[in-house]
């Protein structure tokens, strides 16, 4: 318990340091940030597309099964879109992101720590928080909502493939129901969540890398912590945001 509180304190202080360095780091070297958006995005992209499609297909099967008990198969598009936009899209994407992009951020920064590259930068009068941490953090924060949007779009395609092509729901009804029931506020909730999760997942990833024990095992342990801590934080934050918005 005491350890968790200390950790929370350390992460918060680190967050402050990242935020303080952020404007200058981002404005003076936008190229570094763009490169990291590309990195974080591309390493997770295929994974997120595949998972999105399967999650969408499962929603199609389970949704059809549940809805047909009320003879409400026409609402399949709505059900899938709401589940994806409000919950599954942001949560599953963030978890996948932590496992793929997050771990690679942690191990990259951790390896730089273990091989004295961060100390060498400090000795060259270059602040590693500005040069190494901020671009990765910001890259993750910006990539996350984009990945969530892709996950959602592919997820709905998956539901459509099952519902319309296999189960025989009418295609026109599928889309018109979806469009008339899903509000802008549902979409906004999803975007809000994806930004918060993006901050949490990226912050934990760079924090664990930056503060890891400078040895091979230290980097390995930090990478594991990134996944575990991100998963827990995402689910807790998800509950808090949902409870606050409903």
């Amino acid at each position, binding site marked *: 318990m005491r350890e968790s509180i200390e950790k929370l304190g350390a992460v918060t202080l680190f967050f402050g340091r990242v935020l303080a360095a952020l404007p200058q780091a981002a404005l003076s070297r936008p190229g570094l940030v763009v490169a990291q958006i590309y990195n974080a995005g591309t390493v997770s992209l295929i994974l997120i597309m595949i998972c999105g499609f399967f999650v969408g297909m499962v929603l199609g099967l389970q949704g059809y099964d549940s809805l047909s008990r009320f003879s409400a198969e026409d609402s399949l598009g709505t059900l899938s879109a709401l589940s994806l936009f409000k919950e599954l899209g942001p949560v599953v994407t963030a978890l996948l992101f932590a496992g793929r992009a997050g771990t690679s951020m942690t191990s990259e920064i951790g390896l730089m720590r273990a*091989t*004295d*590259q961060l*100390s*060498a930068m*400090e000795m*060259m*009068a*270059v*602040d590693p928080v500005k040069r190494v941490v901020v671009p990765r953090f910001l890259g993750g924060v910006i990539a996350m909502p984009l990945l969530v949007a892709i996950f959602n779009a592919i997820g709905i395609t998956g539901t459509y493939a099952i519902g319309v092509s296999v189960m025989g729901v009418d295609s026109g009804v599928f889309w018109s129901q979806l469009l008339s029931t899903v509000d802008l506020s549902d979409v906004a909730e999803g975007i809000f969540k994806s930004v918060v999760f993006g901050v949490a997942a990226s912050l934990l990833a760079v924090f664990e890398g930056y503060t890891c024990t400078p040895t091979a095992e230290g980097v390995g342990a930090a990478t594991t912590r990134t996944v575990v801590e991100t998963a827990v934080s995402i689910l807790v934050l998800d509950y808090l945001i949902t409870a606050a918005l409903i």
Partner: protein
Amino acid sequence: MPDATTDYIVEIEGLGFSRGDRPVLDDLSLGIRRGEVTAIMGPSGTGKTTLLRLITGQLEPERGDIRVDGRHVNRLSRRELYEMRQDIGMLFQQGALLTDYDVFENVAFPLREHTNLPERLIRQVVLTKLHAVGLRGAARMMPSELSGGMARRVALARAIVMDPKLLIYDEPFAGLDPISLGVVLRLIRNMNDALNITSIVVSHDVLQTAAVADRSFILADGKVVASGSPEQLRTHDSGFVQQFMHGHADGPVPFHYPAPDYAEHLLSRRES
């Protein structure tokens, strides 16, 4: 105000620093003269690397005062510290090259971060420095493709690219073959004299260091126990200095890190 009039570029007085409860440096004082190659020697674990990190402001001392080129290192803001470090080149024990970039970009890194030089000029400066360490031909190699000795020479090129006043080497000879070793030795001497800078070499390699240093300090128990030219040290009358300079296993310096009684330790059930 930086006061550049003294003979000493680094002045340390009454420096104290501990790791946990264990004092590493204790009431250490020394001065490093401008234009000389100064060696800091001492058995493994006496705090040589720690001392370098204190001089460059990577660690904060508990007691005492460190002045580099007239600036009080532990009173500088982060910004002033970074300003000071632009005048210092440091060679890390393992080179610490940036593994994401090739040799050329590693050497160009400080220039790109701190200057707005046009690309053509950066190229000239980088190639000149790489030529000085004999690795102009390796400009496009990645750090992972370099041998230990090459990596250290690239790190040296990177350390001198901003034309520092003070060049610090942490264990520049460790793990080098005799040829690379000779090359690095000559580089240290030549860099110091040709660029008119001051060098600090940390090492426990007595012979190599004696060959290059104008003056040496020997550390033990967190203090300077002897200092002087290599000649003076070789004929120093302290038992410890004799043991260290000539590499005897037995003498005032224990081979063992402080530990409980051996027999008792082996027989006890728990690790104390």
